[in-house]
């Protein structure tokens, strides 16, 4: 699996729709922008994970649904959901 920006956005939408049990049509892409992240976990590490400390380029994907915003982060090899409470999720890698 290798993501492009568009395919990462689409995969994020699919993930969010499943999590919220809603249609993808109800999810709005607020922004999808290139961004440098502090490490190779894209600044969104999960428990028991160590990541390479190299500045890494990827995309920050902001989606909205049901009046709430959700932040995904992706690069060509992975997609992560950044949780509000500091709990992050690896969606695909």
């Amino acid at each position, binding site marked *: 699996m290798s993501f492009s920006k568009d395919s990462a956005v689409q995969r994020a939408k699919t993930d969010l729709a499943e999590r919220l049990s809603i249609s993808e049509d109800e999810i709005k892409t607020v922004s999808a922008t290139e961004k440098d992240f*502090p*490490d*190779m*976990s894209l*600044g969104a*590490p999960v*428990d*028991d*994970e*160590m*990541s*390479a*400390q*190299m*500045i*890494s380029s990827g995309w920050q994907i902001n989606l909205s649904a049901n009046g709430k915003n959700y932040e995904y982060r992706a*690069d060509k*090899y*992975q997609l992560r959901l950044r949780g509000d409470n500091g709990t992050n999720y690896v969606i695909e*890698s």
Partner: protein
Amino acid sequence: MNRNNFWINFCIAVVLITSAAILGQIGRWQSMLHKNMADFSTKSTPKPITVKRSEAESEPEVLVKFRSNVNLAEIKKIAAKNNDRVEDEIESVKGLVAIDDLDNADTKKVAAQYAQMSDFVAYAEPVFEVKLDDPVTNSPQDLLLRENDANTVLPNDPMFKDQWALNNVGQNGGKAKADLNALNAWLKTQGSSDVVVAVLDSGVDYTHPDLVANMWIRPDNIPQYRDDELGTFNDLHGFNAADNQSDPMDDNGHGTHCAGIIGAEGDNDEGIAGINWKVEIMPLKFMGRGGFGTTKDAIEAINYAIERKRAGVNVKVINASWGSTMYSKALEDAIRAAGEEGILFVAAAGNNSTNNDKQPHYPSNYKLPNVISVAALDRNDQLASFSNYGVNTVHVAAPGKDILSTWLNDGYREASGTSMATPYVAGVAALVLASEPKLSMEKLRERVLQSVDKLDSLNGKVESGGRINAAKALGE
């Protein structure tokens, strides 16, 4: 002819003769005038004078700055003693002269000969020939050396000029000398293949042309690695804890980048130079294609390094360009165990621009006697904007921004992070061990931390207050 006609004819003849005489004189005057004009014209636009220089009048070859207590007469005596000649005194810089070597010896050697006379000479450098179609940045040999660097040896790696961390001459807006002082360090040692540095990372591309000569290969007298639970591994090139197999090939690039900083083969006409021209790099893979891995796999790989040390492999340093805010006692214990085997553990401080004294980052924050925590500097000796810091928890800083090193597919790229600063520290530690192989891990750590160049920008930011200096660490 009547009398009247005679006088008329006589007057006409006189007039004609006089006129002819006058015209003749005018002609001579005109001729003289033309000659003088021609002479004048020739004198006012002289042809270029070409004077063939003799061998003894050849171009000056070295610039030597003598100390203020040496006068010109003494300078000429010194030059004559070396069978050289003072070609010119550079009046604007007291003591600086251009010297012509009458033996036509190698200019670098001539400069080095003068540089060695340190009682009389402040510095000496070859005169570099600058051609309009050959910019000075085109090859490492064209690099402008700094003062007192004339007797150093530059590696012939074509990308060396872009390695500001090793030799910062102010390229790309950097600050001259904001570097590891590698040129002076290499006067003492360029590394040793007796020293093994483990790169605990995403693996290493051990076939990369700039790394292949410096990769560790299990010697025949060291048995295959055996783990009671995981089985036996034909660990020819290292170990892959991420996939529980022997092949540590890198599929991310990060580990290959770190390996190049530590030990890309130097002076091999290829790519870059590592801080060690010669060393043995042992790849320990625990992170996958994405550049992240588990603490468990990191521990497995550290365990491998410890076991190999016990089996007789001279593993002295582990490079850990990774981390997290998650504390793991098991990881801490594994690193402690490595220390008990005499292995130094060099760890990245992290890239969140935060204070590790307040928000710990691991493994760099483990308070263990074998851990060195590393912050990153930019090419102007400033703490990199992304770098973590902590006067009680981060020990030292090293170049970590826009660092050129090896990458996948026989490539090279620049990268930034405390990931890049860490292998410079691990590499300097290996360089010290090349020079002093019996040095204990504790003394090695002390040496690296106490030989820093103190920087105002690091005051209150890192424990040592400075940037590592390879030459000082070697006692140069």
